[in-house]
């Protein structure tokens, strides 16, 4: 713009400060909790390593070197080799990659099924709400692994349908969280105020309800993700998930269990990975929960 504006107020205009930007505030609150920050760092490293494992300078996870069977950790193979001489490190990273993807599938299915319906019924209430709530209660009464096993029995041994089945059983939790939050928000005056400004119900749900429900959902998502990893491990441990030669954390445990006496490290390594993953995700989700509840109780 050229020339001094005649509309300028005589007092100097301070530079626009984004001091209280939402994102910056979250980060500061998060960083204050050292433990969860450490967990986030570890989690990020694991995820990066797993996602990038195909391009990292590692042995192929399925490549057998029968001469190097059951090597101890250290030396040529950092984490040793398994009973077919496959590089344990490469296998664990490949397995983690599959586990993360499987957990993500289950979580996404849960979100897609549970959240939109929960937001709508929580906001609208009435008969629709009680009907759908009972329906989701019914779904929740199904044990996730049993449903997954049944699906596998019908569709064959594949991981994706099994994880989708688990996601379906996860969906009631998402439904409940979003329904409860939406029904609280629905009675707030700012919803009525928003109506008085001429906004339609779908728009109100998309902005005000989603905006206020998001913190609760982020926490629920991270918790569910951890459950997803455990569920995948359990399925593959039972031989119903990933099929050989591909590795998943659960299937690695199964084959290692036979060698527990001679090569215990083969059980410990994938087991440790499961524990660390789930623990880190839980710590991060705890921190997220603390931040979001702290922000509400201003």
């Amino acid at each position, binding site marked *: 713009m050229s020339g001094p504006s005649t509309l300028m107020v005589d007092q100097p205009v301070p530079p626009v400060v984004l001091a209280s930007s939402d994102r910056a505030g979250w980060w500061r609150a998060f960083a204050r909790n050292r433990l969860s920050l450490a967990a986030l760092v570890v989690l990020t490293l694991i995820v990066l390593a797993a996602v990038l494992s195909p391009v990292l300078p590692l042995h192929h996870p399925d490549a057998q070197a029968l001469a190097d069977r059951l090597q101890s950790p250290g030396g040529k193979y950092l984490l040793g080799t398994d009973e077919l001489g496959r590089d344990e490190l490469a296998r664990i990273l490949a397995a983690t990659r599959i586990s993360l993807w499987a957990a993500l599938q289950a979580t996404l299915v849960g979100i897609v099924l549970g959240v939109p319906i929960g937001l709508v019924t929580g906001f609208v209430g009435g008969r629709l709400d009680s009907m759908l709530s009972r329906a989701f209660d019914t779904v929740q009464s199904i044990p996730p692994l049993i449903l997954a096993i049944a699906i596998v029995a019908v569709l064959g041994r594949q991981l994706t349908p099994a994880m989708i089945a688990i996601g379906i059983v996860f969906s009631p939790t998402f439904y409940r969280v979003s329904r409860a939050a939406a029904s609280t928000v629905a009675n707030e005056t700012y919803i009525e*105020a928003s109506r008085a400004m001429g906004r339609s119900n779908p728009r109100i749900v998309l902005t005000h309800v989603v*905006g206020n429900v998001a913190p609760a959902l982020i926490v629920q998502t991270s918790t569910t993700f951890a459950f997803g990893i455990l569920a995948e491990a359990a399925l593959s441990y039972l031989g119903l998930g990933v099929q050989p030669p591909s590795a998943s954390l659960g299937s690695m445990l199964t084959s290692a269990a036979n060698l527990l006496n001679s090569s215990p490290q083969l059980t410990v390594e994938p087991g440790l990975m499961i524990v660390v993953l789930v623990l880190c995700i839980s710590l991060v989700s705890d921190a997220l929960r603390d931040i979001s509840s702290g922000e509400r109780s201003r």
Partner: protein
Amino acid sequence: MRTRSRAESGSATPDTDLALSIRGLEIGVLDPAAPGGLVPVVTGVDLALAPREILGLVGESGSGKSLTSLAVTRLLDPRTVRVQSGSIRLFGRELLSLSEPSMRAVRGQDIGMIFQDPMTSLDPAFTVGYQLSSVLRRHTDLRDRAVRERALELLGLVGLGDPRRRIEQYPHQLSGGARQRVMIAMAVACQPRVLIADEPTTALDATTQAQILELLKSLADTLDMSTLITTHDLGVVADVCDRVAVMYAGQIVEQARVEQLFYHPKHPYTERLLMSLPRVGVPPDLQGIPGQPPRAGTFPPGCRFAPRCSYVDAPGCVVTVPPLRPLGDERAARCVRVDDVHLSGVST
């Protein structure tokens, strides 16, 4: 400068001169136990709001004043409340028969509304600027930079200092008064012709209250806007209103210009309300009104104030509901003894 076309004013009805005209409004609350399934809570309310006028709708809790104001924007919860009959016209245009999408276009555009509690009427999850801009985007063609400019301008209009900082802030970073100013900015963002303020100052402290009322008064002037304020506080009425309508048990019992109502009330309920006002310099012997207002569904057959009125005499008081009698000079009172009892107002 008003940019809106007044195309619909072509349909000539007697109400086109009035900003807002409410006639025979009947509102019932759903109750399966009641005869007909509805308990009447607002019965036969008539109100007229002239352009640029500030009308106070006074009554105690449960008198039906908030329901009446919500009915104008058709924001009553259809699950619990029904408008049974009546007519609400905005410059002659019937609102009760509009489709929901047309009504949404009226809300925020032609009728602005502000609420009692500024602490909860702004969404805590979004900045002031976001919420204000979304109203502008909904009802105007302004986009991007122009929206921001207009938002800053509006915040200045409602007297918020340092709009550039305010626009980035979240509601919890603002005081109650500042939030109510933001609410007002949102309500007047599209230069509505009618502003409905439902107990706008009840949740604010006395100093802030006076500032907000002053703001409403000046906005009515600068924006060429009519204002309907509901309140239970006669002090608010005395501060800003041109005219007052007093509601009791779902009916309007008296209408008058402010000075007339305060100095020469014509309905015993108004007199008792004035007697229960605290006054500066007078020993605090406030006189409450004996008894309780009747609950909806248990209205007495005659005058609804009769059980608590000290002037009950004529059989007309308890047998049939007295009509709202016009007394000339823009006044009306719902009392059969309006000619033979002398009521005292506020002494000067």
